[in-house]
Protein backbone atom coordinates (compact mmCIF):
# COMPACT_ATOMS: atom_id res chain seq x y z
CA UNK A 1 0.00 0.00 0.00
CA UNK A 2 1.09 3.54 -0.75
CA UNK A 3 2.32 5.34 2.36
CA UNK A 4 -0.55 7.71 2.97
CA UNK A 5 -2.02 8.58 6.34
CA UNK A 6 -4.84 10.91 7.26
CA UNK A 7 -5.57 12.53 10.59
CA UNK A 8 -7.85 12.63 12.36
CA UNK A 9 -9.77 9.55 11.20
CA UNK A 10 -12.99 10.71 12.79
CA UNK A 11 -14.09 14.16 13.90
CA UNK A 12 -17.30 15.71 15.17
CA UNK A 13 -17.45 19.48 15.21
CA UNK A 14 -20.01 22.25 15.54
CA UNK A 15 -21.28 24.54 12.82
CA UNK A 16 -19.11 27.63 12.46
CA UNK A 17 -15.91 26.17 13.89
CA UNK A 18 -12.70 25.83 11.86
CA UNK A 19 -11.46 22.35 11.04
CA UNK A 20 -8.15 21.18 9.56
CA UNK A 21 -7.57 17.74 8.12
CA UNK A 22 -4.07 16.48 7.47
CA UNK A 23 -2.72 14.19 4.78
CA UNK A 24 0.80 12.82 5.06
CA UNK A 25 2.69 10.80 2.44
CA UNK A 26 6.00 8.97 2.52
CA UNK A 27 6.22 8.38 -1.26
CA UNK A 28 7.67 11.77 -2.25
CA UNK A 29 5.00 12.16 -4.96
CA UNK A 30 4.55 15.61 -6.44
CA UNK A 31 0.77 15.51 -6.81
CA UNK A 32 -1.68 15.36 -3.91
CA UNK A 33 -5.47 15.64 -3.87
CA UNK A 34 -8.40 16.13 -1.54
CA UNK A 35 -11.79 14.58 -2.34
CA UNK A 36 -15.10 14.31 -0.60
CA UNK A 37 -17.35 11.28 -0.91
CA UNK A 38 -21.10 11.52 -0.55
CA UNK A 39 -23.76 8.90 -1.36
CA UNK A 40 -24.73 8.96 -5.03
CA UNK A 41 -21.91 11.30 -6.02
CA UNK A 42 -18.86 9.09 -6.14
CA UNK A 43 -15.77 11.13 -5.27
CA UNK A 44 -15.55 14.82 -6.08
CA UNK A 45 -12.33 16.79 -6.19
CA UNK A 46 -12.01 19.66 -3.74
CA UNK A 47 -8.44 20.90 -4.29
CA UNK A 48 -5.19 19.50 -5.53
CA UNK A 49 -1.52 20.34 -5.35
CA UNK A 50 1.19 19.93 -7.98
CA UNK A 51 4.10 20.94 -5.77
CA UNK A 52 5.07 22.79 -2.62
CA UNK A 53 2.98 25.97 -2.41
CA UNK A 54 1.33 25.11 -5.77
CA UNK A 55 -2.37 24.38 -5.47
CA UNK A 56 -5.50 24.66 -7.56
CA UNK A 57 -9.26 24.34 -7.18
CA UNK A 58 -11.32 21.33 -8.03
CA UNK A 59 -15.00 20.81 -8.71
CA UNK A 60 -16.31 21.57 -5.20
CA UNK A 61 -13.81 24.02 -3.67
CA UNK A 62 -16.22 26.58 -2.15
CA UNK A 63 -15.80 26.71 1.64
CA UNK A 64 -12.44 24.92 1.60
CA UNK A 65 -8.82 26.04 1.51
CA UNK A 66 -5.59 24.06 1.31
CA UNK A 67 -1.93 24.49 2.03
CA UNK A 68 1.21 22.58 1.18
CA UNK A 69 4.39 23.81 2.82
CA UNK A 70 6.24 20.47 2.55
CA UNK A 71 6.18 17.75 -0.09
CA UNK A 72 4.84 15.21 2.37
CA UNK A 73 1.96 17.18 3.91
CA UNK A 74 -1.25 18.53 2.38
CA UNK A 75 -3.72 20.28 4.68
CA UNK A 76 -7.42 20.84 4.06
CA UNK A 77 -9.13 23.59 6.07
CA UNK A 78 -12.79 24.30 6.52
CA UNK A 79 -12.72 27.91 7.70
CA UNK A 80 -16.24 27.79 9.14
CA UNK A 81 -17.76 24.33 9.01
CA UNK A 82 -21.34 23.89 7.80
CA UNK A 83 -23.63 20.86 7.95
CA UNK A 84 -23.32 20.45 4.17
CA UNK A 85 -19.64 19.66 4.72
CA UNK A 86 -20.48 16.52 6.67
CA UNK A 87 -18.80 13.89 4.52
CA UNK A 88 -15.97 11.41 4.21
CA UNK A 89 -12.79 13.07 3.03
CA UNK A 90 -10.09 11.22 1.15
CA UNK A 91 -6.57 12.27 0.34
CA UNK A 92 -4.78 10.82 -2.67
CA UNK A 93 -1.35 10.94 -4.28
CA UNK A 94 -0.55 10.49 -7.94
CA UNK A 95 1.57 7.78 -9.52
CA UNK A 96 3.39 7.49 -12.84
CA UNK A 97 0.38 6.81 -15.10
CA UNK A 98 -2.02 9.23 -13.49
CA UNK A 99 -3.49 6.58 -11.24
CA UNK A 100 -4.04 7.80 -7.73
CA UNK A 101 -3.54 6.03 -4.42
CA UNK A 102 -5.90 6.85 -1.63
CA UNK A 103 -5.60 7.27 2.10
CA UNK A 104 -7.96 5.62 4.59
CA UNK A 105 -10.31 8.59 4.83
CA UNK A 106 -11.57 10.99 7.50
CA UNK A 107 -15.19 10.89 8.55
CA UNK A 108 -16.29 14.44 9.44
CA UNK A 109 -19.60 15.22 11.08
CA UNK A 110 -20.70 18.85 11.47
CA UNK A 111 -23.54 19.25 13.98
Amino acid at each position, binding site marked *: DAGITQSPRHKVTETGTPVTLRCHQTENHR*YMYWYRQDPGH*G*LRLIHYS*YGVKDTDKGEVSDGYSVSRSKTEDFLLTLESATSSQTSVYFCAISGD*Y*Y*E*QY*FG*PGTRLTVT
Partner: protein
Amino acid sequence: AQSVTQLDSHVSVSEGTPVLLRCNYSSSYSPSLFWYVQHPNKGLQLLLKYTSAATLVKGINGFEAEFKKSETSFHLTKPSAHMSDAAEYFCVVSDSSARQLTFGSGTQLTVLP
Protein backbone atom coordinates in the same frame (compact mmCIF):
# COMPACT_ATOMS: atom_id res chain seq x y z
CA ALA B 1 -14.54 17.59 -20.79
CA GLN B 2 -14.57 14.01 -19.63
CA SER B 3 -17.29 11.96 -17.99
CA VAL B 4 -18.03 8.44 -16.83
CA THR B 5 -21.34 6.62 -16.68
CA GLN B 6 -21.71 3.45 -14.67
CA LEU B 7 -24.78 1.84 -16.11
CA ASP B 8 -25.88 -0.07 -13.02
CA SER B 9 -26.03 1.34 -9.52
CA HIS B 10 -26.53 -2.15 -8.03
CA VAL B 11 -25.58 -5.61 -9.29
CA SER B 12 -26.34 -8.89 -7.53
CA VAL B 13 -24.74 -12.20 -8.46
CA SER B 14 -24.51 -15.61 -6.87
CA GLU B 15 -21.19 -16.85 -5.60
CA GLY B 16 -19.33 -18.69 -8.35
CA THR B 17 -21.14 -16.95 -11.22
CA PRO B 18 -19.62 -14.32 -13.53
CA VAL B 19 -19.51 -10.63 -12.71
CA LEU B 20 -20.07 -7.84 -15.24
CA LEU B 21 -19.96 -4.19 -14.18
CA ARG B 22 -20.58 -1.78 -17.04
CA CYS B 23 -18.87 1.54 -17.66
CA ASN B 24 -19.04 4.00 -20.56
CA TYR B 25 -16.78 7.02 -20.79
CA SER B 26 -16.46 10.25 -22.70
CA SER B 27 -13.14 11.97 -23.21
CA SER B 28 -11.71 14.46 -25.67
CA TYR B 29 -8.25 12.96 -25.49
CA SER B 30 -6.75 9.49 -25.32
CA PRO B 31 -7.96 8.52 -21.90
CA SER B 32 -6.45 6.57 -19.09
CA LEU B 33 -9.10 4.42 -17.43
CA PHE B 34 -9.20 2.78 -14.03
CA TRP B 35 -11.38 0.63 -11.84
CA TYR B 36 -11.25 1.09 -8.08
CA VAL B 37 -12.90 -0.98 -5.36
CA GLN B 38 -14.07 0.24 -1.98
CA HIS B 39 -15.01 -2.13 0.80
CA PRO B 40 -17.27 -0.80 3.59
CA ASN B 41 -15.62 1.91 5.68
CA LYS B 42 -12.37 1.57 3.76
CA GLY B 43 -10.40 3.65 1.31
CA LEU B 44 -10.29 3.07 -2.44
CA GLN B 45 -8.02 0.39 -3.84
CA LEU B 46 -6.82 0.35 -7.45
CA LEU B 47 -8.06 -2.81 -9.22
CA LEU B 48 -6.62 -2.20 -12.67
CA LYS B 49 -5.64 0.49 -15.15
CA TYR B 50 -5.65 1.04 -18.91
CA THR B 51 -3.00 3.40 -20.26
CA SER B 52 -3.06 2.84 -24.07
CA ALA B 53 -1.12 -0.41 -24.07
CA ALA B 54 -3.02 -3.73 -24.35
CA THR B 55 -6.78 -3.29 -24.60
CA LEU B 56 -7.46 -6.25 -22.30
CA VAL B 57 -6.22 -5.34 -18.86
CA LYS B 58 -5.77 -7.78 -16.01
CA GLY B 59 -6.01 -6.62 -12.45
CA ILE B 60 -5.89 -7.98 -8.96
CA ASN B 61 -8.15 -10.69 -7.52
CA GLY B 62 -9.03 -12.14 -10.93
CA PHE B 63 -10.68 -9.02 -12.36
CA GLU B 64 -10.11 -7.81 -15.88
CA ALA B 65 -11.46 -5.10 -18.15
CA GLU B 66 -11.49 -4.53 -21.89
CA PHE B 67 -11.05 -1.12 -23.46
CA LYS B 68 -13.31 -0.75 -26.52
CA LYS B 69 -12.74 2.59 -28.20
CA SER B 70 -15.50 2.12 -30.80
CA GLU B 71 -18.03 1.58 -28.01
CA THR B 72 -16.39 3.99 -25.53
CA SER B 73 -16.69 1.26 -22.93
CA PHE B 74 -14.48 -0.18 -20.21
CA HIS B 75 -16.50 -2.97 -18.60
CA LEU B 76 -15.17 -4.88 -15.60
CA THR B 77 -15.50 -8.66 -15.48
CA LYS B 78 -14.61 -11.62 -13.32
CA PRO B 79 -15.31 -15.26 -14.24
CA SER B 80 -16.39 -16.40 -10.80
CA ALA B 81 -17.59 -14.18 -7.97
CA HIS B 82 -16.41 -14.67 -4.41
CA MET B 83 -18.12 -13.45 -1.27
CA SER B 84 -15.16 -11.16 -0.61
CA ASP B 85 -15.89 -9.31 -3.88
CA ALA B 86 -18.93 -7.64 -2.33
CA ALA B 87 -18.06 -3.95 -2.39
CA GLU B 88 -18.59 -0.74 -4.31
CA TYR B 89 -16.76 -0.36 -7.61
CA PHE B 90 -15.86 2.90 -9.32
CA CYS B 91 -14.98 3.43 -12.96
CA VAL B 92 -12.64 6.39 -13.38
CA VAL B 93 -11.28 8.32 -16.36
CA SER B 94 -8.23 10.53 -16.50
CA ASP B 95 -7.68 13.05 -19.22
CA SER B 96 -4.14 12.44 -20.45
CA SER B 97 -3.48 16.18 -20.60
CA ALA B 98 -4.17 16.70 -16.91
CA ARG B 99 -3.68 14.84 -13.69
CA GLN B 100 -7.30 14.88 -12.63
CA LEU B 101 -9.66 11.96 -12.31
CA THR B 102 -13.38 11.91 -12.99
CA PHE B 103 -15.30 9.26 -11.05
CA GLY B 104 -18.44 7.39 -11.94
CA SER B 105 -21.15 7.30 -9.30
CA GLY B 106 -20.32 3.71 -8.37
CA THR B 107 -21.81 0.23 -8.65
CA GLN B 108 -22.63 -1.69 -5.50
CA LEU B 109 -21.89 -5.39 -6.01
CA THR B 110 -23.73 -7.89 -3.84
CA VAL B 111 -22.63 -11.53 -3.84
CA LEU B 112 -25.28 -14.00 -2.72
CA PRO B 113 -24.35 -17.34 -1.12
